[in-house]
């Protein structure tokens, strides 16, 4: 069949381009109330008093929630009051919620709430946070309730420590003839999903809790609300319509909790909460910052021998996903290279910054920036072409990962081929730097990437297939359609399996935790693998049922039957068979007897052989497969002004079998754009008091149309044997090497090593003028 690989237009496309697609905030109902948060204006402060008296007087205000001590929340450490009490720990922290008859009344009243703060000393970076003299963001971190295996260090700002101990680091340094050691850093930033977060909550008289939310993790909303507030899990029903971009930011559970508390405050009435952009930027979880020290060593020939890495993940004021993020930093703590001796300490560190959610790539773009920059610095010291250094060390089947997984072709893909292809596409042999004239140069930088997922071993996905009377299919999956087109790809897979047209597979877009089988979370580029396997299992289950009935009718063995074009027929005599519509709601014999009944296909998938990491060495299997790649960025750099234009961004990614070509192209290109924004411009700018000075799109600017380079994307298709049709994850990989490749190209162009993001002209100027 021809469904796989084809650029099938996504099923929700027409709704989206005509503006008819509905997102959470588009839903309204009679009697709905509206919640509005009040957020802190300080980085760290004691709350002396919250005066709500003026706000309460505003007609239409139904409730104000402030100063109340609710159960602590947080994914691995319960360290976060949903609404601040006693003190606030970051600029943007929620200090109160107003619930009112209309959004404007709620907003007006919110501006009338006066919080009296006493500012406290601020922890303004992870490096400051780990100093002995640093103020403590949490006084009692060791006393919080936490998951097993999480190890906060008492009376410090360290929420967790993940260790990688591979080989013998001393031996590695003994074998290293050339070494480099550098510090790198970048501040927190944000995802800037086009749809700001929104959540609607209602508590029914019978205690059922209905949540509608723009979430990548509706099943997690249910699970966490249940755990945090001790509610029977079946009473929580979460509904998620289309989501207008997630990028990891909507995998954290935050606004849902506030909507629930707001509804509770008004006797369970429906309350809608919607972030304005400022709140979405700093109040809801953001993208982590990082301080890193990277030391790598190799032989004179450029064979990598040792890597010693310290990662201080800026976990902001609350640890939530930061612990997991810091663990992911450790798991793929190097680039995709064979390195026998690795020592990595990755810490989740509290600061007085907004706290992070996952971000597309889940720590990999962050680690790749620092590691791939170090690779270039090492290459310069070796006087070796940086592409050649990477080619020499590219990880191969038979090598082991930092967590000591022995790799094979299926699990790791083909890094050397990606490097080879990107070398051609970028005309690397022209030279890394070309002088245009006295003022301008063109320069290229390369980065290699890899990514596995680090999702929990028990994560699973389920799919149900039902039929319509005409023999077409309905596909029901817990994957949230966050703009990646995954649900369309699932339909392609099922259509392929049934050998029918993708148009005849209908997809349910909304996820309803009561009616949709669970998909753990729509994150980590896991939709095509996990939901894909579940979909194929459901298809197989349905086909077996159809065969069973048809075999009786046709008086043949089930295994002599095949399906195609909504028919079931005898392999040897395709003309002998039945239309699906004759079977899928039961087969009726001419005399009226019926057998069968409606066919319901069910399938699930759980990751195989994924393990926890050994707490002392990090040894363990983090996830099913690595998608790998090599990327080049080419810039035109103005040596007089330190400004630059990005001319080209090139990705060669081994994403296994490409399931939907233009869909994949869109994912990769979009991810590259996001990576260039993160690398080149986007960051929060903090003042000395830890306040974010640019919490608006006026001053926090993602890449805009017209600023983009020429994108060149090619694929290598090394199959991942376990995955449907051999596909690998593709939603994040395009982003991973962009900041690093940009940094590498600019370091060459400017003739100065660059260690910090974002790579704005002023910081290149400062490095350069600072030195000369």
């Amino acid at each position, binding site marked *: 069949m021809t469904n796989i690989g084809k650029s099938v237009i996504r099923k929700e496309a027409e709704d989206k381009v005509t503006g008819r697609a509905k997102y959470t905030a588009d839903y309204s109902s009679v009697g709905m109330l509206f919640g509005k948060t009040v957020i802190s204006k300080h980085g760290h402060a004691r709350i002396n008093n919250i005066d709500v008296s003026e706000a309460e007087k505003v007609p239409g205000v139904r409730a104000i929630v402030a100063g109340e001590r609710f159960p602590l929340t947080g994914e691995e450490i319960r360290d976060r009051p949903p609404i601040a009490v006693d003190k606030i720990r970051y600029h943007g922290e929620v200090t109160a919620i107003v619930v009112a008859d209309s959004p404007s009344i709620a907003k007006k009243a919110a501006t009338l709430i006066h919080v009296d703060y006493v500012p406290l000393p601020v922890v303004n970076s992870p490096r400051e946070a780990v100093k002995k003299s640093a103020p403590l963001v949490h006084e009692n971190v060791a006393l919080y309730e936490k998951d097993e295996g999480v190890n906060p260090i008492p009376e410090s700002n360290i929420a967790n420590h993940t260790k990688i101990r591979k080989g013998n680091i001393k031996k590695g340094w003994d074998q290293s003839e050339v070494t480099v050691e550098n510090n790198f850093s970048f501040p927190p930033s944000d995802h800037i999903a086009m749809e700001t977060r929104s959540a609607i909550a209602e508590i029914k008289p019978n205690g059922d809790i209905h949540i509608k939310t723009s979430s990548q993790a509706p099943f997690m909303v249910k699970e966490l609300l249940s755990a945090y507030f001790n509610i029977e899990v079946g009473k929580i029903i979460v509904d998620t319509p289309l989501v207008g971009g997630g990028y990891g930011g909507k995998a954290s559970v935050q606004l849902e909790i506030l909507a629930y508390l707001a509804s509770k405050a008004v006797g369970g009435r429906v309350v809608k909460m919607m972030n304005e952009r400022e709140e979405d930027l700093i109040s809801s979880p953001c993208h982590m910052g990082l301080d890193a020290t990277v030391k790598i060593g190799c032989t004179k020939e450029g064979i990598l021998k040792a890597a010693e890495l310290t990662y201080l993940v800026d976990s902001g004021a609350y640890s939530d996903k930061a612990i997991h993020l810091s663990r992911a930093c450790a798991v793929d703590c190097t680039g995709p290279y064979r390195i026998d001796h690795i020592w990595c300490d990755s810490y989740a560190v509290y600061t007085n910054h907004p706290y992070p959610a996952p971000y597309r790539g889940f720590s990999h773009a962050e680690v790749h920036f620092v590691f791939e920059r170090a690779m270039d610095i090492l290459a310069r010291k070796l006087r070796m072409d940086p592409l050649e250094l990477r080619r020499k060390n590219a990880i191969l089947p038979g090598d082991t990962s930092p967590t000591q997984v022995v790799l094979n072709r299926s699990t790791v893909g083909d890094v050397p081929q990606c490097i080879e292809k990107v070398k051609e596409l970028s005309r690397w042999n022209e030279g890394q730097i070309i002088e245009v004239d006295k003022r301008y140069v063109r320069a290229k930088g390369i980065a290699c990437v890899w990514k596995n997922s680090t999702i929990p071993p028990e994560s699973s996905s389920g799919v149900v297939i039902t039929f319509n009377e005409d023999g077409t299919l309905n596909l029901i999956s817990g994957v949230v359609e966050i703009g990646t087109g995954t649900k369309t790809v699932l339909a392609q897979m099922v259509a392929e399996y049934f050998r029918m047209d993708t148009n005849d597979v209908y997809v349910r877009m909304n996820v309803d935790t009561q009616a949709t089988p669970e998909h753990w979370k729509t994150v980590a580029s896991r939709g095509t693998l996990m939901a894909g396997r579940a979909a194929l299992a459901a298809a197989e289950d349905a086909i077996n049922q159809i065969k069973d009935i048809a075999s009786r009718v046709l008086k043949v063995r089930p295994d002599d039957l095949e399906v195609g074009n909504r028919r079931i027929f005898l392999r040897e005599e395709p003309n002998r068979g039945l239309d699906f519509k004759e079977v899928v709601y039961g087969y009726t014999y001419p005399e009226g007897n019926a057998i069968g009944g409606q066919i319901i296909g069910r399938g699930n998938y759980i990751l195989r052989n994924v393990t926890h990491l050994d707490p002392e060495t990090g040894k363990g299997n983090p996830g099913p497969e690595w998608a790998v790649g090599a990327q080049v960025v080419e810039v035109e750099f103005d040596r007089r002004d330190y400004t630059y*234009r990005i001319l080209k961004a090139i990705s060669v990614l081994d994403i296994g079998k490409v399931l939907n070509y233009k869909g994949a192209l869109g994912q990769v290109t979009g991810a590259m754009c996001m990576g260039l924004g993160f690398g080149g*411009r986007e960051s929060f700018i903090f003042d000395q008091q830890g306040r974010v000075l640019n919490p608006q799109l006026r*001053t926090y600017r993602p890449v805009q149309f017209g*600023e983009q380079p020429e994108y060149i994307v090619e694929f290598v298709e090394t199959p991942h044997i376990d995955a449907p049709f051999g596909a690998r994850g593709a939603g994040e990989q395009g982003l991973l090497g962009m900041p690093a490749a940009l940094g590498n190209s600019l370091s060459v162009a400017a003739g100065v090593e660059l260690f910090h993001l974002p790579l704005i002209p002023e910081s290149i100027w400062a490095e350069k003028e600072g030195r000369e």
Partner: protein
Amino acid sequence: MIPFDFEYYRPESISEAVQLFIELDQAGKNPVYFSGGTEIITLGRINVLYTNAVIDIKGIPECQVMDYHEGNLYLGSCCTLVDIEEKNLFPLLTATSKEVADHTARTKITLGGNICANLFYREAVLPFLLADSQVIIAGPNGYRTEYINQVFNQTLQLERGEFLVQLITEPDKIEAPSINIKRRRQWTTGYPLVTVAGLKLGEEIRVAISGLCPYPFRSQKMEYYINSQDFSQRDRIEKALGDVDGNVLNDTEGSDKYRLFILRNTMLDIVSTLEGERA
């Protein structure tokens, strides 16, 4: 969302607008004239701007004028920046205007709104400062026509109840060689680190600057140095920069030092481009 209610009026004549202002002001409604409305929305929603009544002046025909009259170009204060660009009656203004905000916003932002903005860049004023344009201002005491360089000092100096109706520019200024360079923190979107507009009248170079200080300005002293022929181009620019007052911005767009670094190179580009035309 704007968290306060306000009254909206759309008068159709200047006198009606002024009368409304007087009445609303007397009623304590703190009225503001409203043109494109972008600031009322963007600053209103974050409680930086507050009013109980807006007077939309877009319905006043004089404010919509874009035409030559007796040889001079008249531009109404309610022309949108996109109108200005599309008609392209004043090339330097087109060049400056095109770099303000983005196209979608410029379909709303008006000439008068930008010149009288709360946001301090007010880049659309630069060409008029260079062209010694005249402004027609209406208010409770009738009309007045003034040279913009007399009445624009960081902001357009309006009396209470006054508003900008038109800008009048002479044709020789419109046809003179000109250039506008906007430099940003990164790439092609965002506020200026500096925007410099330059105009050459005969042998005289004029420059006006936005983004360097928290207001746009044209400095005669800087122009004096730039035009003093006894020194090299570089020295003239150094001297001109020496006259920049101490009010250089140091904010999220860039530090003061970096702004001055960028300004130096930008001035060099402006002056060498304009002087190049002499050759």
